[in-house]
């Protein structure tokens, strides 16, 4: 139960890429055209109509994630997400998902650094039911203590599956810890093993008390619904839950970064070495002007798997040093974002040679900028992606939920295509020069352990 951070970063990057609509399409396609409300208790509501099928995707997002955890309690945000399925005053442990299934629906939840989300996909006539159940576990969570003991074993197994059994994930965890000197993004969402082992029932209850309130939540409903009907249902279920005083989301901030960092993981399980690099970057929320959009365009120009500069320079051709390369921008974050590059060398090329070759591509871009042709191509791909995003009600809902829990706005999502369209080559170059600074980076090597 949970899509945790490491997966989330890829997903959030995709969401940023997809973050909006078809304004650019000459076909004149409309935008998502969301309707928004706020209840007296402070609950924000976003409704996106899609009447193609009698189905609805119902999500409750909390403006709390792993980066809001108390020191020493890493993993509690995600652990609580699991425990939210362990019962309320009305519903027994494990019953939540059974009731959803019995009503023909699917449900799950996820946790990231900045948000925690719960969702159900159901036939539209079950919206009343699932909204009532979400409101119930917001207000009346009642976790039996023995469930905490068993579920802790489950999250420890989850950590082993996702991280400890996977050298690439272990390196990413170490690199992230090195990228942020102070900010809690350095701590993995799933938690450090030794801290997870000490998480208690009281920790979970305290975290729920502190953060799960209507004035810290966003209800997103996408599908075959009328906005006014959703508002009425929300009043009925969430209206009676009182607002709670919330502490401001203030995380430790980064000091200046003055030294490039390097992390090497040698692991006997690795058969094929690889390298990656993370740079500190502004997020969509912290960026100036169109900087976030420019970085999104930059990631396409550098990293597209077929037309990107890194692919053309390092993968194509007889003497190409790499078998694959990538670049990504993670801009969906309340605080800092990140920009990343990765590569796998072909047999016989070492990582240092590949790194030199990557740096040459970057240096050339920083020196001469990008072409108008590259700019136009990257925009076409991104704007088409925004139209394709509308094909899925769950993707649509997720775009709004992640935007609103990371300091962005409905308006920003709606004008995303226009802003992408407006990005200039000069803006991309300026953003690249600012972000692709080695002093603000971590370079990671994943290597086989030499046999002794």
């Amino acid at each position, binding site marked *: 139960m949970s899509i945790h951070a490491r997966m989330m970063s890829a997903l959030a990057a995709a969401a940023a890429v997809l973050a909006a609509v078809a304004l650019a399409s000459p076909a004149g396609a409309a935008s998502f055209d969301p309707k928004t409300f706020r209840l007296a208790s402070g609950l924000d509501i976003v409704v996106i109509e899609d009447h193609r099928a009698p189905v609805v995707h119902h999500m409750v997002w909390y403006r709390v994630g792993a980066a809001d955890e108390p020191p020493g309690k890493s993993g509690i945000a995600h652990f609580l997400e699991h425990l939210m399925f362990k019962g309320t005053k009305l519903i027994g442990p*494990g019953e939540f*998902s059974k009731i959803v299934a019995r009503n023909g629906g699917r449900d799950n939840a996820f946790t990231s650094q900045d948000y925690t989300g719960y969702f159900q996909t159901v036939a539209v006539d079950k919206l009343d039911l699932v909204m009532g159940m979400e409101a119930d576990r917001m207000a009346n969570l009642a976790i039996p203590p023995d469930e905490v003991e068993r579920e802790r074993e489950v999250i420890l197994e989850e950590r082993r599956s996702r991280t400890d059994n996977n050298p690439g994930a272990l390196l990413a965890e170490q690199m992230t810890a090195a990228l942020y000197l102070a900010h809690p993004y350095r701590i993995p969402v799933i938690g450090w093993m030794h801290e997870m082992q000490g998480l208690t029932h009281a920790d979970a209850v305290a975290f729920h008390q502190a953060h799960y309130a209507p004035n810290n939540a966003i209800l997103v409903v996408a599908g075959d619904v009328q906005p006014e009907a959703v508002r009425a249902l929300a009043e009925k279920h969430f209206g009676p839950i009182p607002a709670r005083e919330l502490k401001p989301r203030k995380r430790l901030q980064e000091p200046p970064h003055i030294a490039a960092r390097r992390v090497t993981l040698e692991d006997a399980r690795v058969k094929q070495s690889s390298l990656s690099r993370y740079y500190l970057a502004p997020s969509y929320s912290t960026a100036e002007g169109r900087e976030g959009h420019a970085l999104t365009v930059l990631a396409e120009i550098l990293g597209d798997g077929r037309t990107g500069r890194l692919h053309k320079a390092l993968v194509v051709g007889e003497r190409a040093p790499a078998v694959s390369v990538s670049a990504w921008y993670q801009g969906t974050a309340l605080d800092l974002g990140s920009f990343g590059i990765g590569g796998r060398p072909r047999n016989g090329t070492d990582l240092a040679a590949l790194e030199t070759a990557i740096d040459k591509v970057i240096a050339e871009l920083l020196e001469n900028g990008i072409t108008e042709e590259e700019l136009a191509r990257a925009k076409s791909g991104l704007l088409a992606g925004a139209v394709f995003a509308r*094909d899925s*009600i769950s993707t649509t809902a997720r775009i709004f939920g992640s935007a609103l829990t990371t300091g962005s706005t409905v308006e920003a999502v709606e004008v995303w295509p226009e802003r992408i369209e407006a990005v200039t080559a000069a803006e991309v170059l300026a953003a690249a020069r600012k972000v692709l600074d080695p002093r603000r980076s971590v370079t990671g090597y994943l290597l086989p352990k030499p046999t002794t």
Partner: protein
Amino acid sequence: MVKSPGGIEAWLVREPSIPIIAMEVVWRDAGEKRAPANQAGIGGLLAAMLDEGAGDLNSQAFAERQQDNGISVSFSAGRDHFSLSLRSLSRSAGTAFELAELALTRPRFDDEALERLKRSIATQLIRDQEQPGTIASTTLYATAFPSHPYGRPQRGTAESVSALGREDLKAFLANELTRDRLVIGVVGDITAEQLGPVLDRLFGSLKAKGDPVAVAEQPPALRERPIVVDRDLPQSVVQFMGHGVRRDDPDYYAAYVMNYILGGGGFNSRLTVEVREKRGLAYSVYSYLIPMRESGIWQGGVATRNDQVAESLRVIRSELDRMRKKGPGEKELAEAKTFLNGSFPLQLSSNSAIAGTLVGMQLADLGPDYIDERPKLINAVTADDVRRVAERLLDPSKLLVVVVGRPVGLGG
């Protein structure tokens, strides 16, 4: 249902509310299983090569044309079937169909692209040896199907892939991607009148008929003792296999309901309740049916600390046994049916998903009325049907089990 002037059939759902088109095409029985053993992996290589340039467009130009127009044309090969998946903005549909036509009729198979993709596959084959899940499933299939193409690694082997050349790809394309094997689903802002001529352009020049494919039952070879692949991991990755059903099996719906209750129902399945919720042994435990064309497979998995593998397997086996002996409870069965009927329409909420479902229905030889028939077929399954099919398929003492890791106490 659309029939082109040239006689090619497709299923079409017109959906003008979103300006995109989704097309799914499957060549039935044209998958990896059609490759001779020394060409294992040819399906995957061909799929990767088909969008690497065609006609006057080299690899770069072909990719640029897609990105410039909001188009995705991609191919893939499974064990049974070969597929094309096309997505396009409605306004670029003409270009999208043109690119797909070029890919199928005038692929270049340039040396540079071929060598590059062979390097890429060679690297992936090495990486496969890092992934406990891939090691487990490769071992599982190799053991279950020792003398059948299903038992081969899907990507092929370093030797088989390195030996493949452009003539091999051309021959596979010409002989396997034939018109008689086509199954097509289209959803989007396009009419039947517009689609018909497109079908002829895309597929009209393919060979009319492929060699007949013998679709014979090949049950997985099961065994009593677990296979342990020793790897120094903190958590063992376990996969297991039993008998399943093919899609045309009279017990298909009984098996479908049985698997949902046993291990297919996510948080509500018996395996999850017993292994995860009651005992905290694992984060994930699951099972599913794989109705292959030539075999019925029931497969599942669990990942757990090395010292809990034996206990997890004991619990899983005892759940198989309980299902065989007692079947489902009446309430449990009713709830399973409610879910399986109620959740089906949920997957029909996007153009892409509907296109996939249209193809799936045709592959299973179902008619368009299946949407209405399906609930009746599921509701007709009785508790005794479920118990009987479990008894027929699942023998806890003959479960093929592969453990990748250092499990403790599995010896006995």
